[in-house]
């Protein structure tokens, strides 16, 4: 639940999602659900010359199970807050 809440706070921010097939998609985070499925708006594939497969796609849904990394805006992480929340979670609430 922690990372679900965390991603919900990032809605509206620009992120880059790297998939497990090496495709990297940049866009505005529109929503996230309990499976960490991600919806992006105004998407661009990072290396569009190599991957023209999504040239006519501007909004997309990415299945949580294929996400390798999510690159966040530099000020998108409050590390102290995340540390505390993670410790709290580890203690069981």
């Amino acid at each position, binding site marked *: 639940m922690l990372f679900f809440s965390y991603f*919900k706070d990032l*809605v509206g921010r620009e992120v880059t999602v790297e*998939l*497990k*097939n*090496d*495709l990297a*998609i940049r866009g505005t985070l*529109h*929503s*996230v*659900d309990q499976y960490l*499925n991600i*919806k992006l708006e105004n*998407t661009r594939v990072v290396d569009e010359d*190599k*991957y*023209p*497969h*999504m*040239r*006519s*796609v*501007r*909004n*997309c*849904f*990415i*299945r949580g*199970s*294929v996400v390798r990394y999510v690159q966040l805006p530099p000020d998108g992480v409050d590390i102290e807050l995340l540390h505390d929340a993670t410790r709290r979670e580890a203690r069981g609430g």
Partner: protein
Amino acid sequence: MATGLGLESLVDQTISVITNDGRNIVGVLRGFDQATNLILDESHERVYSTKEGVQQLVLGLYIIRGDNISVVGELDEDLDSNLDMSKLRAHPLKPVVH
């Protein structure tokens, strides 16, 4: 839930699906469920290669199991009609490696 979850907004729209084995299937979304299983109508596969333009294979009505789905994209019809598929050359997408 505050965030617009799921694929409701894409029902009856043309979507482009990338599967875990790297295939690209385009069709009209007719239904889906919580596991991202999809029902695609009037679908076709776009086969990318470096030797020739994009080949389109007609598939018809398809059900894709959610396990096998990477990305579901809303196809912008204007952008898509401006693409010259016969000139597009690219390696097929790599399969997903978990």
